[in-house]
């Protein structure tokens, strides 16, 4: 496979997906969970089994909460709504009990607007700091151009994962931030292994064309890139299938990120580095 010579095709593929992600982000945005917006979450399991979301919504209407998000999960319901204090929550739950009978409150969360804002800021700060530190590390260990290419590949993966969540309107909460940071770590990890090989091959280079050298480096690492991703994907699928509702979004985010990460480290990062370096050469 020609990784470098056909790079325009690979770039185009990436750009299409990135563009789609951005369009989705601009058009419908992200579905922020209560971690970021503030609000109350009630995860209920009723003893009665034949309750529908519509019935639940009608019951919530009595409390002016008909705009709540109601999500079914394995016979239980996750209701996300505006912030309520304890007294109000008790009142609402009492109302639901009167209508539907006994329930088990599996999970109850309340996040005030202050905390929501703080979590948002901490999340963004974490992303920025992690990216800067990684640029510094790669610059020190490799060179700045490698860092730039790696960071662009990382942005590629982050945008696609965020876009995916926007497209499907999956919940974005604090675990999503953790997932994005892990994807960043994984993406860079993947990219670095190939860069490391390019660096090594550069040292032993005779009169080889740079494009061939980069292509060879990618090929030498191809089995590793694929095998590692397969191993990680096995784990993520296990987590997705067996892990239950609470880790579902986390696993999905990582799945998308890992797939995008493998693609970007092979088809985006190394070709980008090649372009950065080749451009520099023609100038000098």
């Amino acid at each position, binding site marked *: 496979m020609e990784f470098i010579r056909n790079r325009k095709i690979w770039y185009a593929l990436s750009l299409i997906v990135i563009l789609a992600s951005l369009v989705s982000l601009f058009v419908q945005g992200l579905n922020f969970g209560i971690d970021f917006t503030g609000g109350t979450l009630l995860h209920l*399991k009723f003893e009665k089994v034949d309750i529908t979301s519509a019935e639940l919504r009608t019951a919530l209407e009595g409390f002016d909460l008909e705009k709540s998000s109601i999500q079914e999960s394995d016979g239980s319901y996750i209701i996300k709504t505006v912030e309520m204090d*304890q007294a109000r*929550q008790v009142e609402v739950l009492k109302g639901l009990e009167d209508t539907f009978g006994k329930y*088990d*409150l*599996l*999970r*109850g*969360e*309340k*996040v*005030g607007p*202050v*905390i929501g804002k703080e*979590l948002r800021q*901490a*999340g963004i700060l*974490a992303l920025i*700091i*992690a990216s800067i*530190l*990684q640029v510094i*590390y*790669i610059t020190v*260990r490799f060179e700045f151009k490698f860092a730039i290419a790696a960071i662009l590949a990382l942005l590629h993966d982050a945008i696609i994962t965020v876009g995916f969540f926007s497209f499907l309107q999956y919940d974005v909460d*604090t*675990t999503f*931030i*953790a997932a994005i*940071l*892990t994807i960043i*770590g994984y993406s*860079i*990890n993947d990219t*670095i*292994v190939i860069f*490391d*090989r390019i660096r*090594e091959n550069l040292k032993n280079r005779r009169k080889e064309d740079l494009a061939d050298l980069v292509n060879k480096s990618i090929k*030498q690492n191809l089995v*590793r890139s694929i*095998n*590692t991703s*397969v*191993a*990680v994907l*096995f*784990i993520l*699928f*296990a*987590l997705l*299938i*067996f*892990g*239950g509702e*609470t*880790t579902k979004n*986390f*696993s999905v985010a*990582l799945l998308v990120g890992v797939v995008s990460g493998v693609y970007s480290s092979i088809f985006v990062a190394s070709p980008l580095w090649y372009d950065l370096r080749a451009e520099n050469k023609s100038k000098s």
Partner: protein
Amino acid sequence: MRWGRVVSLVGIVALIVGVAYFSLNPVKENIRLGLDLEGGVQVRLQAKGPVTDEDIAQVIEIMRTRVDSLGVAEPTIQKEGNNRVLLELPGLEDPESAIDVIGKTAQLEFKTMDGDLVLTGKDLKNAKEALDSQSGEAYVSLEFSAEGTKKFAEITTKLVNEYPEVGEKRDEHRKIAILLDKQILQNPYVDEPIPSGQARVSGYENLEEAHKIALLLRSGALPVPVEIIEKRTVGPTLGADSVANSKQAAIWGLVAVMIFMIVFYRVPGIIADVSLILYTLLLLGILVAINATLTLPGIAGFLLSVGMCVDANIIIYERLKEELRNGKSLRAAIDSGFSRAFWTIFDANVTTLIAAVVLFYLGSGTIKGFAVTLSLGIICSMFTAITFTRYMLKMTAESGLFKNTKFYGA
């Protein structure tokens, strides 16, 4: 074939598998589960308005009293920032009811019959129940702070002077109402001016009743109003479900990866699997030793770091294959494969570690658990890959058990 090597090889593998098997239960019993796995409550309180350190210290004391009344085994109550308190109460049958106890806005007020506010919870230092040594009657003794003593002396003197007793008839105006959350808790009559800062409220059925009131007075004496700005409760059923789910996910994930490694890498694959077991042991051991809390994201972090561990092995084996294809002897290939793979593994892992450490410092709640297991996992996986995997590969090569390089995937 060198039988000595073969025997020690088999011995090491048997030892690791054995230790892993027998440490399953001790690990299970000793590892601390997070609130999301055990069930429980996490509450963040914030004081309204300006507060001093003493105010927060007092809020913490009061919260401790309230939490104790719930019978939580290992509560954590700590100050956060200037004006916040974080409470973590694991293992409650009905976590939501705990919120009612913690979240009581409970402000203590002392008011005259005219409705004048004379003292607040800030002025009360302590309240204790006791039995009168002579009459055997139960009472609650109140102890006021320095400022409270002064205020209380003033108001009692004033009331006694303004509403003198005429014969046996008591003047209702001499009563001071003690209100908790605007509800009258006590409404004692002032017999005489009290300058000492020590007051006694009597008229209880028994000591138990006095104890209840004393507890309410003590724990009700919040110096500042606080509000719940964040609350997360997980019921015991969901916690148990999550434990069962993640166990399933961990087992199937690990098994799939192990099979994959054997199918793809043959003998080194088996070594990778053994080192994966050793790695898991190491990580769980460290988690228990540092008394880290295992959360749901923490388990995900552990599983992801399994991927890192496998990756280190894969990088090494791919190098090994390459060196073998280049015509090197098995031993030489192992040596040069390792020395070349080391820095690759190192650089690749450091970048992931950077992300994990940042997450540890900026993440909140259960996410911290993710950062902890991921960071430790990366370090452990690097360690096992460059020490144990290497050692085992060399031993295997030297044992002469598998001479054909085909066994190494080349």
